[in-house]
């Protein structure tokens, strides 16, 4: 049995601390869709406080989209994501675990090692890796191969294991992290992986793909006041205290609309349960997309995540562009 890497850091407060304020409900996409308290962080906390076992709330645990919107609003600072993943580990996804573990058993390809202390590493998510032309543009905009190394080992299997509650073998985790420790900066596209990287590598500078790209003047210049800028929710909430200030500045500068609610929480465009992520249930993002768009008069959607872009493209005739498409460096389509 391999040594198992547990969820990065023990949570600062667990569900026992829940005071029942319900602020998590206001931002929870599952609650918005179902208005079923049992499927909310509050419902899980209260059930556990009253002696219910994880198995009794399995459906609730799996329904969580891990968007992490509930974490920044929780006054008790309950580590919702870590606790939910803890519960998922207990439930041990029968279907998902073997596949994820099998992938992790393979020898992952070597990552180009950052050679100098100034080098950065880009960890694309699955959607970005499936679009090599966009990935190449991202890499170019972030300085090209001399400035940022493309991680061949993007940790996709680890991200999947985290999502499903499958323990990550310590050796696999170490192999992944070893290649990142010397990086001056890590740009991570997967929000769940980014959250854990921040805990595994507390000294590293880790930024979201959205932040890395939107900091570029060439990209910023492409934003219009009539745009709807769609922040990738998982990554944003993983580093909320810093990013809420960053995006507030961006909002002031760009004067466009954002997918932020009144609590400055990002409304996730793609909010999917574990079963949906695994392709075991049909995906329906309409409730979220309608909520993001309701009452907003925009002419274009600008997305940080290709996955978000794909769902917007399905429901709206308005143009949807990725941040890389905004860059006015002569290489972007207009």
């Amino acid at each position: 049995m391999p040594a198992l890497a547990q969820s990065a850091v023990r949570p600062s407060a667990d569900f026992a601390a829940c005071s029942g304020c319900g602020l998590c409900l206001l931002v929870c996409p599952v609650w918005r869709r179902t208005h079923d308290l049992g499927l909310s962080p509050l419902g899980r906390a209260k059930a556990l406080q009253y002696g219910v076992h994880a198995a009794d709330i399995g459906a609730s645990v799996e329904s969580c989209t891990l968007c992490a919107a509930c974490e920044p609003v929780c006054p008790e600072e309950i580590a919702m994501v870590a606790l939910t993943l803890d519960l998922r580990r207990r439930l041990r996804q029968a279907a998902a675990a073997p596949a994820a573990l099998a992938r992790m058993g393979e020898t992952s390809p070597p990552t180009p090692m950052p050679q100098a202390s100034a080098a950065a590493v880009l960890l694309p998510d699955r959607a970005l890796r499936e679009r090599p032309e966009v990935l190449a543009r991202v890499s170019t905009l972030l300085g090209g191969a001399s400035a940022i190394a493309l991680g061949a080992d993007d940790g996709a299997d680890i991200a999947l294991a985290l999502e499903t509650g499958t323990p990550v073998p310590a050796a696999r985790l170490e192999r992944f992290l070893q290649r990142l420790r010397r990086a001056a900066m890590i740009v991570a596209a997967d929000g769940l992986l980014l959250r854990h990287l921040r805990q595994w590598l507390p000294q590293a500078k880790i930024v979201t793909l959205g932040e890395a790209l939107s900091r570029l003047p060439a990209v910023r210049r492409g934003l219009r006041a009539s745009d709807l800028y769609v922040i990738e929710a998982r990554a944003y909430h993983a580093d909320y205290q810093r990013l809420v200030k960053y995006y507030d500045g961006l909002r002031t500068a760009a004067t466009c609309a954002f997918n932020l609610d009144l609590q400055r929480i990002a409304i996730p465009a793609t909010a999917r349960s574990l079963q949906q992520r695994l392709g075991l249930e049909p995906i329906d993002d309409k409730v979220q997309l309608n909520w993001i768009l309701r009452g907003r008069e925009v002419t274009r959607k600008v997305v940080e995540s290709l996955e978000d872009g794909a769902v917007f493209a399905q429901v709206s005739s308005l143009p949807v562009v990725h941040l890389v498409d905004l860059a006015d460096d002569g290489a972007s389509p207009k």
Partner: protein
Amino acid sequence: MQLTDIEPGTLGPCPVAPDSLQGIKRQQTNPSRWNGANWAAFADGVRASGIELRESMAARAAFATDAGGTAHGLAHGVVVARSTEQVAQLLRAAQQCRVPVTVSGGGMTTEGESVAFGGVLLDMSGMSRVLSIDAAALTVRAEAGIFWHSLAEELRRQGLDYLSAPLNLTSSVGGTLGVGGIDVNSARLGCSADQALALQVVTPTGDIVECSDTHNAELFQRVILGYGQFGVITEATLRVRRYTPLRMHYFYYASLSTAIEDLQLLDRNDASDYSGILTIMDCAVNVLVAFDSDEREAAFMANWRPRLRAYGEFGFGLRMLIHYALRPWKLGEAWYLLQRKRELFPELRRSEYMRDGAMHDRSVVFSRAVWKFWGSRQMVIPDLATSAEKFIEVVQRGNAACRKYFAHYTLYLVGIKLRPEHRAHYEMSCIPPDAEGWAYGCEFEPLLDDGIYSRDYLQSFKNEIYDIGVDMGASYYRFGGMMKGYIRRVFGDALVDRHLALKRQADPAMILNRHVIF
């Protein structure tokens, strides 16, 4: 005694009763649990009519306590409200089988009013849609289970805002209309219940009735501020307004009575759009004043600011420095005040909510601060409401009780503009019958911090506050649930008996929210 962390899946010792039997499972602590007669027949009937009734422990436990965290009870089953017709069906079945129905919106009660001690828990948050917004007429129609903040989110997409709501974001519209609701603009706009123009109500016998001040007015009068006794509010039409950011000013006082006098001066003269007092014990008394427009702010600064007997921030700091320098035995208190200020004030001035000196989304700012700095798993918030004339004495006596029981506490004081045409709504409510023009309310909230208090201790404190009210002819906001023993002492037998007769007539089996008032 220090509580240990409770692992998910286990039940720790009851944190409000250190003398309880440690480790013994307590599913509910209140003695008046309904005995379950006819439950099986009721459950079968309800399910046969297509209503989802959940009886799992997980479903019921989610509603086992309220925001107060001192009343614990389990329903036999939970129904999530999905439509008015479904609620009506449920109440008809409950009336027939004499099964108690407890209604919960946001669960923000503190005396167990939304906790079911057996019977059905009806979760109204399942009915949370905004049905229509009339931006020209400035009205909104919404299902009553919607949280005020969810309503605000919808209204803001059209540049609108609600008038007033409790500062905790997750109170439901229906629950608030049933008890009152106060905000820092209540001195100008009245209590939250005053903004209701019309309601759709399901009566305890399952009839669906539309009511307003002009249509089925008697039902409207009883349901508004009626503590859920005369029907379940399923839809509400509310007045709304254009959204504006606000400009905040804080004025510091060392004396409660001076601060209250100045607050009442501002209220009487309509000098501000928002006003209230928030204290740290009685040491730092803060009058907060805010404005929706530059014009109103300028008029205040010209006409009323010079008349306030307040300190500025620097002046108050200097005064406190001298005060505690002369009283070194109170340095612990001084340190607490300083820490509190250091933690709280940045939260009220977070840059992402400030633009050009104006605060945006003040309800978010205040409410998040309320939960962060005042919230905990147990909250007792006894309150008193009086006429303007009695208010200073009531607050001073209540403050003395706080001092006696707790090291740290907060007082939250606001005026409530009364609407003469709503006098009938106010009967047997938090609005004291002798108040004219404005009523004034004070919440006495101990900061329980890491302290462990038995329920008896907390109850004794509440009793002491409420005894002051009885003595001075005050009223209360939280007189239901565990505090209902005060109802006859406060309102008198004649009024209570009259309402009881009305209740029996409207709810023959006495099923609806039966432990709240009667």
